[in-house]
């Protein structure tokens, strides 16, 4: 081996990487700490770090003022629902584009991606009028469909690039063996595609969870997710940093935890064809 890594070098890289990592993470850490302070301690000058009277009163106050469980439930249903629906539509499409590319495959992909650029507010009134006409305002199904459509191009694109990396020879071999299209998909390709699908699912859940335009304007109570929940705590009379922090933590904690636990899967497939 040409390069034996010296411990000294390793320590240096470790220090540098940790410094950057903590810097990136710091705003979240600070929000977390602030959420356990009293309002007075939250704006204390100079700032207090760890040695303050830890209190959960902010979380209690936030709970009391809003229906967190409902908002959480809605966020989960909408994010997961739109992802599942999106995957159901996208997998066959991406599959076909990757393995049976036609002359216009690239154009179709481009066109799909361009729909993503529709500025949301430009179609706000049409969509609201449509939803009211269909009687689906403030329903989870509406948000599931809308968020699915918004993110579908990204899902298709991501899956397409992933599927393209699956070698075509495997397909040919299975065809030689007389496998039908169905069994080809089920037994040959699906196992190979699982990592890519998994990371697509994760990315899409994150995107749907954090969408904060449609989820606020198409809901009132029943389908209102965490993005709307947080809008009840921003800018009240007076600056309630501690309560704002507590509400923020409640809104981001579930997705943060999910992200951390599944980061390996997320990272593995998150290439968008960037690696050949």
């Amino acid at each position, binding site marked *: 081996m*040409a*390069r034996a*890594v010296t411990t000294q*070098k390793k320590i240096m*890289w470790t220090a540098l*990487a940790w410094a*950057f*990592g903590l810097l*990136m*993470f710091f705003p*979240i850490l*600070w929000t977390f700490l602030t959420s356990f302070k009293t309002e007075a301690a939250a704006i204390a000058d*100079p700032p207090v770090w760890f040695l303050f009277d830890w209190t959960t009163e902010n979380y209690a106050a936030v709970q009391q003022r809003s229906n967190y469980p409902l908002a959480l439930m809605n966020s989960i249903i909408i994010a997961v629902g739109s992802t599942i629906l999106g995957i159901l*539509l*996208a997998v*066959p499409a991406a599959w*076909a*584009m990757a*393995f*049976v590319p036609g002359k216009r495959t*690239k154009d*179709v992909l481009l066109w*799909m991606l*361009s*729909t993503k*650029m*529709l*500025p*949301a*507010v*430009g*179609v*706000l*009134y*049409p*969509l609201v009028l*449509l939803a009211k006409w269909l009687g689906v305002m403030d329903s989870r199904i509406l948000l599931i469909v809308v968020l*699915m*459509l918004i993110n579908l191009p*990204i899902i298709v694109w991501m899956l397409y*690039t992933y599927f393209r990396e699956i070698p075509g020879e495997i397909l040919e071999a299975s065809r030689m063996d007389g496998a039908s299209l169905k069994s080809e998909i089920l037994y040959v390709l699906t196992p190979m595609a699982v990592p890519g699908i998994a990371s697509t699912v994760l990315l899409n859940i994150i995107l749907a969870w*954090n969408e904060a*335009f449609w989820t606020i304007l198409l809901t009132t109570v029943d389908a209102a997710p965490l993005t709307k929940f*947080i809008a009840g705590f*921003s800018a009240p009379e007076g*600056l309630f940093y501690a309560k*704002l*922090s507590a509400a*923020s933590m409640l*809104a981001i904690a579930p*997705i*943060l935890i999910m*992200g*951390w636990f599944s*980061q390996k899967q997320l*990272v593995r497939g998150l290439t*968008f*064809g*960037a*690696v050949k």
Partner: protein
Amino acid sequence: MATAHSKSAARIMIAPAVIALLVWMLVPLCMTLYFSFADYRPMRGVFDAWIGFGNYASFLTSSSFMSSLITTFWMVGGILSITIVGGVLMALLLDKPMFGQGVVRILVIAPFFVMPTVSALVWKNMFFNVDNGLFSYLYKFLGMQPFDFLSQAPLFSIVIIVAWQWLPFATLILLTSVQSLDSEQLEAAEIDGAPALSRFRFIILPHLSRAITVVILIQTIFLLSIFAEIFVTTNGAFGTRTLTYLVYQRVLESQNIGLGSAGGIVAVILANIVAIFLMRIVGKNLDN
């Protein structure tokens, strides 16, 4: 290799997604198109179905249109530069041998999971606030006058917030690319005595170019529609009004749906031009 049979099967498989997106494009977009030629101001109870290109004319000729384009350009450009440069460095750093690599990676990607509204609120109140923000304490600690980020460097402040959210994304994609780098080639170059900088310039960077184009493409799509960060921090003041935000002002603040719809259509057209341009580059990069 594709048989006629598999071709038609392929069409059937693509159809649902295409139809779904077609409906999504056509129904609201056609309604927007329809409104864009109408004088539609619900607050006044006005609905005049056809006024020709009046809305387009007033949207395009208003002085706010050009300035919003410029703002959009700087905002997207600023965020892209920070995330690409930062992402490459971070990816190279994370690829190095170190203790606790997994934990560091978790710390670095965390901002990507944070809701835009929340990150904007946190940055605005707890960091940028000139009286109670952490940066102000830092300035005071260093014996300087606190700097009012949001009014003195508003575009920069928003770029920082959004870049913080997207840096993890860029880092992740670039990291995968870095890891696929042929290490033997690098070692050979090192043995030949090539300095670190030229190793980076001639081996690493070309290898990353594909990943970089992908990052640019995907991020641009998302960055063109930045809304929450502007809404929460400056509300479009101090020259932070992007095209998306201008359309928002027309639709929701001025309640001029016709004018806003025309703006929306203009935004779609411009975004598509950008998209085609980007896809050409990426397409080239993906084919070779």
